[in-house]
């Protein structure tokens, strides 16, 4: 459904490339998380995908159609939500949707009502957007992205600023969309837990380079994270080293073949004064840390 093919971009006056030969693909009906710290190149990648930013090299294809060569045809298959969506505050939600959808050739009013109902904005759709809460704006953003029916959604930090209930609701809606419409989603975020809960696969960017692409499954990493605390830090460090482990923040990463029972027994036997030993379930964070480590080592 989506293909990034060797996309490179350097902004005028910038010392480094915002994107450096980035290639990845997302299949139909998949939810893909685009992860990276601020400045990693996520927004640039989305900008290029939406035809807002011109790449220096490479190409993005949506359903086989090049965004760079046939932008209107390619973008017709997309709906997009930006972080802090900017609507016309003096117009009602309904009028905003009318203005925006006019640029997509217009939308049947029945479909508009159905979509508004689905995002849960029916009661306030005729109020000026200036009076909307952040959560309501985000729901309006989702409605505009779904009008007319897109094949793919592009979401740029869509849950930023939402309260916990809003985040849960947004997540539910996203999964329902995939279920009902088989919609493909590219989801940019720096919230690991968020991506982990909704995405089938992730692409991790770091300093404009792709450092990981694949399933959200730590089994691919070859690493398991542990939370370990001991009274004798020196012994702890020595044992970690002997098991080919590494410190990542307040946790330790060990190769998956490392036996936890054996590891714990060693800590006890060596008299480290261990007070906490908790293997953590495979997480996206471990994936992220792994990707960063690989990249630093130049193997990614």
């Amino acid at each position, binding site marked *: 459904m989506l293909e990034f093919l060797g996309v490179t971009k350097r902004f005028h006056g910038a010392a480094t490339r915002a994107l450096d030969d980035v290639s990845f693909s997302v299949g139909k009906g998949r939810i893909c998380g685009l992860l990276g710290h601020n400045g990693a190149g996520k927004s640039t990648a989305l900008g290029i995908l939406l035809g807002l930013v*011109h790449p220096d090299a490479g190409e993005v294809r949506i359903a086989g159609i090049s965004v760079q060569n046939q932008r209107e045809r390619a973008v*017709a298959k997309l709906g997009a939500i*930006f972080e802090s969506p900017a609507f016309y505050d*003096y*117009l009602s939600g309904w009028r905003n949707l009318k203005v925006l959808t006019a640029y997509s050739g217009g939308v049947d009013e029945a479909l508009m009502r159905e979509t508004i109902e689905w995002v849960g904005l029916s009661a306030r759709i005729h109020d000026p957007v200036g009076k909307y809460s952040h959560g309501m704006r985000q729901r309006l953003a989702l409605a505009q992205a779904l009008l007319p029916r897109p094949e793919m959604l592009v979401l740029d930090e869509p849950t930023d600023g939402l309260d916990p209930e809003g985040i849960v609701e947004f997540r539910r809606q996203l999964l329902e969309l995939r279920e009902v419409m088989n919609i493909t989603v590219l989801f940019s975020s720096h919230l690991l837990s968020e991506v982990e809960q909704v995405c089938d696969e992730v692409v991790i960017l770091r300093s404009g380079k792709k450092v990981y692409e694949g399933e959200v499954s730590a089994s691919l990493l070859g690493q398991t994270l542990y939370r370990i605390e001991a009274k004798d830090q020196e012994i702890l460090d020595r044992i970690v080293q002997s098991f080919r482990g590494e410190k990542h923040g307040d946790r330790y990463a060990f190769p998956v073949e490392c036996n936890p029972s054996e590891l714990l027994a060693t800590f006890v036997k060596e008299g480290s004064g261990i007070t906490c030993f908790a293997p953590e379930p495979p997480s996206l964070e471990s994936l992220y840390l792994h990707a960063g480590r690989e990249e630093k080592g130049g193997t990614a």
Partner: protein
Amino acid sequence: MSLFLRQLGWELYRLFARRRSWLGFGTFLAVETLFYWFWTRERSKAGMANFIERVAGGFDEYFSALTLGFLIVVFTMILLGVVFVSLIAGDILAKETEDGNLRLLLVRPISRLRLLVIKFLSCQIYTSVLFLFVGTTALGFGLIERGWGGGMLVWAPEIPRVSLFEWNEGLFRYFIAIFAFSLIYLPVTGTAFMLGCFRIKPAAATIITVALFLADRILSAIPLPAFDPYREYFVTPRMASWLLLLYQEIPWPRFFESAFWLVGFGLTGFLVGWIAFERRDVKS
């Protein structure tokens, strides 16, 4: 075509739904009121009476609602025209880029050129509506003071001799000239719009446009022989060509020559803006 008109219609709806757009109308009305007050003072009227008696005879006949309306329009436009037109044209793209509205439009399946054409036409339609509003309200002030009927007297430094019209012809000429005036403002729209297409603050687009046209007006008025070979390139003197439509005998070739020149200037501004905008990265 119907889709284009629908898109233009919604753009106009959006433009006119904005309170800021109506502030322009309110400001013009306030300044018109000021000039109405000035032109209906006894001392101002006495001055006009002297002038009209000298050039046409019959102050009561020629100091009509149309004549008063014309005076109010001219002075109001000199004071506010360039500022407001450049404010709207400079704002329409630069402000939307700054606010982030433009991104939501640009991710729709529409070319940048088409979007710019819609925005540019909206500006021009807004300008024409604003000018016709000023013309109508100025005439309204005239009617309050002088009532319906009488002749129309037109004089301005650009007009070689005074023009005198019967009421009906005067009314026709009055509105045609004001409408042409709004089209002849295309260089202002084009310049501000062009600047708005670059990565620039909306206020900067307006200020630069106003500064350019003010400089043009001042330089063109300096009777320095060194300027003579370049005089035809000044824009603001040509923008007075709407007054040609108020000549007793309209010099159509001169009018069209100036009108085409000005329209060409405005469209060149649009073209340069489009090229810049097409190449530009729109990023948050």
